[in-house]
């Protein structure tokens, strides 16, 4: 199975790219767009939790964004 290694290599490349470039980023006074509510990575935690619960009980995969688990899913 080559696919997982390809994904891992791609992820590590992004990781190295992101962490290796200290020049990335902006000054605090340039965060007007990033500070908007909708730009928060957890902008809609309740929507996210309801969707996660749906997918957890209907699919074999869960989590990734945060921890997986948390229920029986027996239906």
């Amino acid at each position, binding site marked *: *199975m080559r*696919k997982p290694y390809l*994904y891992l290599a791609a992820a590590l490349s992004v990781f190295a790219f992101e962490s290796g470039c200290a020049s990335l980023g902006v000054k605090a006074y340039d965060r007007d767009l990033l500070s908007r509510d909708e730009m928060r990575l957890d902008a809609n935690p309740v929507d996210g939790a*309801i969707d996660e619960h749906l*997918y957890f009980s209907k699919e*074999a*995969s869960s*989590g990734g964004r945060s921890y997986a688990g948390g*229920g029986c899913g027996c239906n």
Partner: protein
Amino acid sequence: MAASCALLGAGAAQSQEADGAQKEQSQLSRILEGVSFDSALAYYREDGRIQAIEPVVNLSKTFAGGEIATLNITFDSLSGASPNGALPSNVPQTFASPSGTSLITGRHLYTIAPGRLPADPNYQDDRIAVAGEWELPLSRLTHLSLGGKLSGEDDFISATLSASIAQDFNEKNTTVLLGINNEFDSLRPIGGAPVPDSDYAAFDKDGTKSKDGLGVLLGLTQVMTRRWLSELNLSWDRFHGYLNDPYKITSVLDASGNTLGYVYENRPDERTRRSVYLENRVAWSNVSAGLSLRYMQDDWQIHSETAQAHVHFSFANRQQYLEPSMRWYRQTAADFYTPWLTEEKPVTGFQASDSRLGAFHAFTYGVKYAYKLSSDAGLAGSEFSVRLEYYQQIQDHRLAAPVLLQNLDLYPGLKAILVQFGWRF
């Protein structure tokens, strides 16, 4: 004179009342300072199967020292028809609900008409989950977060503890997070936990079962540019214990497709999963967009890919927004998944016909509309929203059906809708 005294007296009383009201209001605003409230009422319905009502309340308060306390309460009420894992047949099939102890006596029995997917029509379950989190700054750049969650159903209790530490670098443009969680579950299946692989007609069941899970998450969040934010997560988790669905059975067929009987599913008692998750968000003046990708694999040989995108359009001076979204998901089957069994024993020694372990792909189409009240209105800054979603699963890699079952829909998939109303401030 008396009239003017009365007027003055009334004026003083009114002024005292106004002072009191002002004090109460300022006390209330002091209590509400730093508080955010998020709530939703969701209704979920599958085509001819389960329906659920789910109210959720999420309350958090930020204290002067930067600590954040969060409390989440979720309630689910599920009812309807839950597929039991057996295949449709050309003849009527009779099953017992989990509380049944015989396939002969009339109580707790249900009969499925020819051609219909076997599903227990009396499924009913309620769940309540309470979660809390306490986030505290250890320094200007380091945050510790401790959490716990308790979830209870009629036949299931789950407790989870979690801890994570986040460190900011590079003028807070880079955040690295390391988290760990531990879950302990106790299962008390209605009627008892069936012995895996046992004959369904034998009602060979025993008592309470348990499983536990350990998860680790390593995350990196990076501000890329003024408009672009990126997050990368690597996660790993391992579950150990009773991993069967105690209510799922598998049909046993002869070569022509006649049903010879049913056996309870038998999954391995350990499962390890790994995932990579990448999310990017980009903002323009009144529009922002997000795209997330996830790859997950486990040692049951399930591999899945997920892509999810949304676009956020703000309008009416940012008091309203519209957010269409789309999600695509695909998974391969577990190596022990089989829609039915023959008289030969499965190669892996394990078997399950639960379609959630089969190969399928799924789409979700969604849209959310929200209206924010202006901050000087009655419910200052409140946001009211409505969200609609349509979810569809289509099963892949269908095996050729035995001759007697070729006219039946053995892979019905799943269609569902979700309607959600939200209020937050």
